[in-house]
């Protein structure tokens, strides 16, 4: 009998071009067929792509083009670049173009639109494509050059990494979120370049999809290759609700006897609000409650990881009946147009605006220091986006603290890093 396989090994094995279904193991290189490919507006800034355009595109119906990083375009050059991309999409027969105002940030958008499916392989230029793992889909950022390869051939390769299993038990307490679960892993285990992460345990079932997405997305920050949740009923229901009735799914689970390179465990009941300090994430994490002496000038909620309806609810709950501190500028960026519309319907946008925070259009914007509020020299920012690297959000002389959306909102109210339970605690009857 062949060796039992992990979830990612089974997905890669199934997609192998050379011997589909044959077992794979760590250190193998597997060439695979890619199920779906996502291109971004950043293609407009890639000189080599623009200089060497593919003559034709492999299966254009399986290619999506999402404008998210540079929207709305802040410069003439970028606006012209986006026009060029629209022409290319038309010439290549790519009709799945999510243009400005009709989409959002690629990772949550693709999930929202049924392009993230369990058991499939999804490729995208962008490093946070591991977000797809929340739905049991093998997503991995591959960079623009590899995307050119997939556009031409429909194929790519992966080195099979060892897999770590993270078992989750219990339930998250109020005021604590998926971001804090991720920060717990980053604090306790650090980076795992080349390895995969698979989540398991009876704590998974109760986690809402946006919470899983926040965790899976952030696993890019510990250099995980793939970060997969099991495709349980909650995940399958989420996906089915976004597909035409009867569309078949082919979810993949780990073999029950699969062995792992390491076993981690997280007791969700004991997770507390955490913050990653400037300028790196792995093993650079402290409890928020110990950092309250840090004053802030900027607060940001958003990004592919933490601009979901769950995040906007958390922000509105903290801001309810309070005001943003006069020394703080607080911006909130929903992930997608659908999330923004839902936030408007639920009255969240109004609550955030009346507290003195700004709600922007869905975009990557400030997360990568592109536009929509970059940091100036000497600023101190607390953000629920994805990275706290030096210079990431603007000036290299700014400091970035990475935390959950609830922690960001609580800090925006007090003007210094603040454990959200301190504020929300007062709301309890």
């Amino acid at each position, binding site marked *: 009998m062949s060796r039992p396989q992990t979830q990612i090994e089974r997905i890669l094995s199934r997609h192998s071009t050379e011997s589909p279904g044959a077992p794979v193991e760590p*250190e193998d*290189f597997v060439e695979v067929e890619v199920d779906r490919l996502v291109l971004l507006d950043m293609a407009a*800034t*890639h*000189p*080599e792509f623009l200089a*060497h*355009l*593919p*003559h034709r595109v492999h299966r254009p119906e399986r290619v999506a083009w999402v404008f998210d990083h540079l929207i709305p375009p802040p410069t003439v050059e970028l606006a012209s670049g986006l026009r060029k991309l629209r022409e290319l999409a038309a010439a290549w027969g790519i009709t799945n173009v999510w243009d400005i105002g009709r989409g959002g940030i690629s990772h949550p958008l693709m999930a929202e639109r049924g392009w993230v499916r369990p058991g499939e392989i999804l490729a995208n*230029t*962008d*490093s946070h494509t591991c977000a797809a793992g929340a739905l049991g889909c093998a997503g*991995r*950022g*591959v*960079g*623009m*050059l*590899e995307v*050119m*390869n997939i556009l*031409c*051939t429909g194929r790519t*390769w992966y*080195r099979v*990494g060892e897999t770590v299993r993270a078992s989750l038990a219990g339930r998250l307490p109020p005021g604590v979120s998926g971001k804090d679960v991720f920060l717990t892993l980053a604090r306790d285990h650090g*980076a795992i*370049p*080349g390895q995969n992460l698979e989540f398991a345990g009876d704590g998974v079932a109760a986690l809402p999809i946006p919470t899983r997405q926040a965790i899976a997305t952030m696993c890019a*920050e510990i*250099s995980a*290759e793939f970060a997969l949740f099991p495709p349980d009923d909650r995940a399958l229901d989420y996906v089915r609700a976004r597909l035409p009735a009867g569309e078949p799914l082919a979810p993949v689970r780990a073999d029950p006897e699969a062995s792992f390179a390491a076993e981690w465990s997280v007791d969700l009941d004991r997770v507390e609000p955490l913050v990653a300090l400037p300028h*790196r994430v*792995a093993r650079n994490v402290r409890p928020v409650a110990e950092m309250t002496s840090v004053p802030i000038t900027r607060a940001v909620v958003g990004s592919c990881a933490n601009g979901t309806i769950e995040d906007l609810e958390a922000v509105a709950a903290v801001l309810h009946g309070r005001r943003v501190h006069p020394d703080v500028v607080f911006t909130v960026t929903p992930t997608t147009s659908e999330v923004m519309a839902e936030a408007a319907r639920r009255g969240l946008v109004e609550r955030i605006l009346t507290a003195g925070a700004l709600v922007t259009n869905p975009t990557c914007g400030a997360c*990568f*220091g*592109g536009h929509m509020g970059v940091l100036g020299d000497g600023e101190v920012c607390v953000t629920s986006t994805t*990275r706290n*690297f*030096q*210079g*990431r959000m*603007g000036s*290299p002389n700014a400091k970035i603290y990475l935390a959950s959306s609830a922690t960001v909102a609580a800090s925006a109210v007090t003007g210094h890093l603040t454990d959200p339970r301190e504020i929300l605690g007062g709301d309890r009857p």
Partner: protein
Amino acid sequence: MKLVGRAWVFEDDINTDLLYPAACFRLPAAERPRLTMSANRPGWSAEVRPGDLVIAGANFGTGSSRPAADNLKGLGVAGVVADSINGLFFRTAVNTGLPVLEAPGVRAFVREGATVEVDLDTGTIRSEGRELRVRPLPPFLSRILADGGLVPRLRNEGYID
């Protein structure tokens, strides 16, 4: 593929925002490499010479999909050898035609300024009379490097001009 060059030694967790700061996106391609690691090691991009090697600790290249390898290549860096390397950076480097090798222990093994010899296909690293053996680069990836990266390969195969 063999490399011989002078070593620059860097710490753990050198990320893509250090290798390729966001300001690069607003500069013409030729002016981008001089910003390489300007935040963590100001002045380095002026000191590094073509043929030099970057040696680093764990998790080199962690971060985004930006074309960070372009900057190192633009400075003439002949290759990167690190204790461990982020998978996305690793792929981008190979696709860019920049030789890379994961070599656990290399950061402690190499002294900054020393001459280092790297054989990617046998996984042998020599410096100052000592030798470190690691897993070699798989032939599959050596071939992409030998082609000069992905663009020449796709051109040879007739997919692009």
